[in-house]
């Protein structure tokens, strides 16, 4: 009901794909992949597979030399992608190819701020339009520094994904969730991205706190890697964001994925991992 109210008020312009695939749902699966890891074709095939397995949106990570918020798994993936010259502009171009092959769910560009700064705002939004991109997430652009980008995302009808952490104060949480669009990204624990064996029980209290404030879906990320976790998190938020756990699968299959002949085999390996991981959501596949 909150969401409807939000739209009636017309405070935020909503993105079409977010409206269709994300809004109002409580079983969100939002995977993260690094563009170009290990090849462009792999990234396209991964995105399509993830959609088939029930992903509601995809975070497309742009490789960066100095990923401050990321742990070793994503750092290594970034290096693999940078080795063959992946860039923000090229990664955005990949989305067009994904769309041509049938990707319908929203794509969020996940990029560190320096890459965005060098590309420039105008160029970025031109590429957003050209390649049917639906959202932006900048891990090192906190609320205080992001006003300009939030506004331009709103006027370009894409979501600006905001993050909140267990240490985020009540006051900040209110301010952030008031402005948030798309989904609200809850960082499960402090530190960097990467798989964790278990969550501290305080994460549930944190999620409940965020849910109270948020008028958009609340998803949790950082460390989600097992179906048992998904099962437990289900009752406290609207979805999970899975990054390092999938990237680790990619890493294990890296040689298989690089070769055209064996790529499908590699993708299917990752498919079974994903299927098991999000089984608590009991998703019906939208394609087969």
């Amino acid at each position, binding site marked *: 009901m909150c969401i409807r109210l939000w739209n009636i008020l017309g405070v935020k312009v909503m993105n079409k794909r977010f409206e269709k695939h994300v809004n109002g749902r409580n079983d969100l699966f939002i995977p993260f992949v690094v563009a170009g890891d290990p090849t462009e074709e792999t990234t396209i095939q991964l995105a399509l597979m993830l959609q088939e397995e029930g992903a509601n949106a995809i975070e497309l990570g742009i490789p*960066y*030399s*100095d990923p*401050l*918020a990321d*742990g*070793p798994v994503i*750092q290594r993936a970034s290096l693999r992608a*940078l080795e063959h010259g992946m*860039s*923000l*502009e090229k990664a955005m171009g990949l989305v067009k190819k994904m769309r041509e092959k049938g990707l319908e769910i929203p794509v969020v560009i996940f990029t*560190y*701020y*320096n*890459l965005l*700064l*060098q*590309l420039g705002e105008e160029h970025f939004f031109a590429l957003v339009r050209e390649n049917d991109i639906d959202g932006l997430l900048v*891990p*090192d*652009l*906190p*609320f*205080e*520094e992001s006003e300009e980008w939030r506004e331009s995302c709103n006027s370009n009808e894409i979501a600006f994904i905001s*993050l*909140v*952490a267990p*240490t*985020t*104060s009540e006051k*900040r949480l209110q301010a952030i969730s008031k402005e948030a669009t798309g989904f609200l990204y809850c*960082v499960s624990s*402090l*530190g*960097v991205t990467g798989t964790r064996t278990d969550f501290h029980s305080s994460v549930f209290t944190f999620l409940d706190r965020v849910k109270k404030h948020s008028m958009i879906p609340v998803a949790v990320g950082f460390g989600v890697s097992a179906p048992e976790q998904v099962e437990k998190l289900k009752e406290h938020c609207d979805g999970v964001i899975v990054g390092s756990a999938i990237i680790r699968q990619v890493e294990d299959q890296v040689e298989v994925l690089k070769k055209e002949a064996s790529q499908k085999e590699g993708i299917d390996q990752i498919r079974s991992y994903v299927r098991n991981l999000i089984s608590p959501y009991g998703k019906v596949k939208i394609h087969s």
Partner: protein
Amino acid sequence: MATIVPDQRGRYGRYGGKYVPETAMYALEELEQSLNEAMADEQFMKNYHDELKKYSGRPTPITHAENLSKRLGGAQIYLKREDLNHTGAHKLNNAIGQALLAVRMGKEKIVAETGAGQHGVAAATVAARFGLECKVFMGEEDIRRQELNVFRMKLLGAEVVPVSSGSKTLKDATNEAIRYWVANVEDTFYLIGSVVGPHPYPKMVRDFQRVIGDESREQMEALPDQVIACVGGGSNAMGMFYPFLNDDVRLIGVEAAGKGIHTGEHAATLSEGRLGVIHGSITYLLQNETGQIQEPHSISAGLDYPGIGPEHAYLNETGRVTYTGITDTEALDALKVLSEEEGIIPAIESAHALAEALKQAPNMNGNEVILVCLSGRGDKDVHTIMEHLGGEGNE
């Protein structure tokens, strides 16, 4: 100055700010609040100055380099002797201040990054002095270049954590230290070594280093005509320049031009970099076309940093400070000259500032004065100096 920097948001003009993940915001807020309280607390400032005096041996003297001045036949060169500070460099001034703050905040552990190892040694030293646990993140490449300092840190009881990510140098060590800090902020204080990082770090480090300039102003009979300091991140320069900003004194910051600007192998951030974000701050940055951070080069590990403190970027833009570059070879030559003429072996970092003074002095009058910040001693560099000067036929 007309405007007070940084402003409330930690901005120096368009530079500075807090470009960090949300997970780090709480830690920065906590730090900023505690810092403001501490700086306003007379007892805290008294403790800090007592430690500088009784533990670190301050004030450091100013030496008139008479032989050198005579040889150059121009301006009189004076050296602010930070090499005589405890642990052999200016780094300890800041480390003492931050460690006292860590204790005041009830933190039990400190983490630090280090390039040349000087800041790592300073951090390990204050950790021992104030009973804190200490982890120093250091790039694998730097560990190899600075084995003596690695040993010193261990001797002081610190754990040296090798960093193998990225280019395995200072920028990567800084990334790792920040990552570790954010994950362990409850009991851990991040003791940053230069005027870089997200607000309030650049301001805090400047305020703990300004003792260099404050002392110099008192010690000099009259205001010098020029003040010269080397700039990597820029903490000795910021500490030296800050108290002179409102005076009629020419200020020159010296970046490492490495093998020469034209070779692309340098650390001349202000002359060759573009606006960018590094370690939580918007400043000048060496980067490629698409924004990937580029690895700098300098013979001195302490200047080998692809960014620069945001306040330097600001002072460059306003024109208050002139920034220039000195190559590896020029720095080594200056190091040799000072060793021979005055019996002082400077750190290769400080030799960059000195090399600029060697260029300036002959064009000035005998009654004009150049004050050089001799930020550290060269003992740590003897290995590198030997490689380059001792075995000219080796390469």
